[in-house]
């Protein structure tokens, strides 16, 4: 089983649109995991049926029982996150600041602090219009622990792939280099980097590739909007060859992507768009990688 993770470092480079196109081309041979749980958009193009859903609990937050509280202030004094202010003569937990370390609960002499498990979101397993399964999630706004939800989404996708003997898992990763991305990358067999020829695109590509390198995962790159800036496209090409990153192909700046998205379609469903052939070629290359 191969696990192909698509990431970009920078947001807005076309990562999800391209991933959805691959999911469409892969049909029933693939399982798809939308691991960009902060801004999960894959479902907008894949028409999932939301056939099953489950709550996801992760992490804890302190809660103080005012009846038991002796107002000794110990909890406030040890909290490194300044999460226990005194409001109206009562010590209360500021949920946004609490990291869930549980130190306060351990040292409270009155045993007045409980750590409460947090429902941070939901995850779904759906059948899509491409006759494959999509595992996706929705993180509650402002929730912590997105890395753990990413791990959960990936694990579910893997279970389905094993059970149904699917060859390939396609994973839509998240932007950045932090915990959700690290979670997306763990266990990947191949990474597809989607970039654009802007100074930001190249800068973020270089940073995220350093992370990929730490994991030792082979990688390929798609340059989207390649004709926006030929000079930067050339620099990206040099970066790719210097680092032995496969060049999977270039896509032109094209509003067909937006047009297809607005119709709730992947770009490969637009029969008139010349992007269809380019992306089909890329998918062929990716499928053949061992």
């Amino acid at each position, binding site marked *: 089983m191969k696990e192909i993770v698509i990431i970009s470092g920078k947001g807005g480079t076309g990562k999800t649109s391209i991933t959805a196109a691959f999911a469409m081309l892969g049909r029933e041979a693939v399982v798809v995991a939308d691991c960009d749980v902060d*801004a999960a958009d894959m479902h907008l193009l894949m028409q999932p049926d939301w056939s099953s859903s489950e709550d996801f609990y992760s992490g804890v937050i302190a809660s103080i029982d005012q009846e038991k509280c002796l107002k000794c202030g110990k909890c406030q004094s*040890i909290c490194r*996150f300044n999460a226990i202010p005194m409001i109206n003569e009562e010590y209360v937990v500021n949920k946004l600041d609490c990291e869930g370390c549980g130190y306060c609960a351990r040292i409270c002499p009155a045993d007045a602090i409980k750590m409460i498990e947090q429902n941070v979101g939901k995850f779904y397993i759906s059948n899509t219009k491409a006759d494959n399964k999509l595992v996706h999630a929705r993180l509650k706004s402002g929730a912590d622990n997105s890395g753990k939800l990413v791990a959960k989404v990936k694990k579910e996708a893997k279970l389905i792939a094993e059970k149904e003997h699917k060859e390939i898992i396609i994973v839509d990763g998240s*932007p*950045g280099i932090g915990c959700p991305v690290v979670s997306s990358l763990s266990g990947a067999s191949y990474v597809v980097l989607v970039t654009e020829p802007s100074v930001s695109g190249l800068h973020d590509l270089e940073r995220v590739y*350093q992370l990929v390198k730490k994991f030792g995962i082979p990688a390929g790159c798609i340059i989207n909007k390649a004709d*926006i800036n030929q000079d930067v496209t050339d620099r990206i090409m040099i970066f790719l060859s210097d680092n032995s990153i496969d060049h999977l192909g270039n896509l032109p700046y094209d509003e067909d992507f*937006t047009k297809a998205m*607005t119709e709730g379609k992947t770009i490969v469903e637009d029969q008139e768009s010349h992007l269809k052939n380019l992306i089909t070629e890329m998918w062929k290359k990716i499928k053949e990688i061992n």
Partner: protein
Amino acid sequence: MKIAIASGKGGTGKTTLATNLASYLAQKHRVVLADLDVEEPNSGLFINGKLIHQDNKDKMIPEWERKGCTLCGLCNQVCNFHAIIKLGEQIMVFPQLCHSCYACSELCPQNVLPMIPQKMGELKHLDTGHFHFVESRLDIGQEQAVPLIAQTLDYLENNFSEETIFLLDSPPGTSCPVIEVTKDADFVILITEPTPFGFHDLILAVETMQELNKDFAVVINRHGIGNSEVLDYCEHNDIDILAKLPNDRRIATLYSRGELVYKEVPEFAEELKKIADYVLDLPKEIK
């Protein structure tokens, strides 16, 4: 006054807006622009200036001293993040997982887990001649953005007066790093694209801001593409739309080169002025 520039979806124009707005406002006001997208900071690519301060930012991590340790395993028990584990005769620390809560260190009966600073990133402070620019970047392999964002906000607080206009370039998304940037902001500008992805992620961002009880408004970028969902939604929910930045290939090209837009594209400058006027007009109690 602290103004955060955020978005649910990435790549909708946060950095374009932040850098152009900073430069525009700095013509008449004291401005500091802070790039708090510490995972992928980009504003600095658009800014030249004189470096006036640079330092490493550390987070505190326990370090095991074998001598004196009775291997009681309390550290392992108290850590909610599995960052410290007793393995046979060894105590192992996993710095990436550590949240620096100090519980293991301070509860250790033998005092053999002192907290030691470990570098997680770098802060730079530049003077462009017009405005100040502060950016922090997380070291590759560090997973937690929040502690670095928090330290950068402390730096801003300690080095600039209250009359300064703080523009905070936020990370994308709606989870903890975004909360860290926006929770103390006086006002949040949410920038989006009028596409289904932009619309979907805008709703998540709006819900997050409502949960935080923040005053916010929307800027539409690449106006003209996609559909009218974003406009209809804002109208229906009484959300101010501050400006509609045009969809223009010239803007994409200028951005790709790391150049400011408003000096070259008058249609963009016109819309930027609307945002600047709105920001300067915010009620005094917010300021």
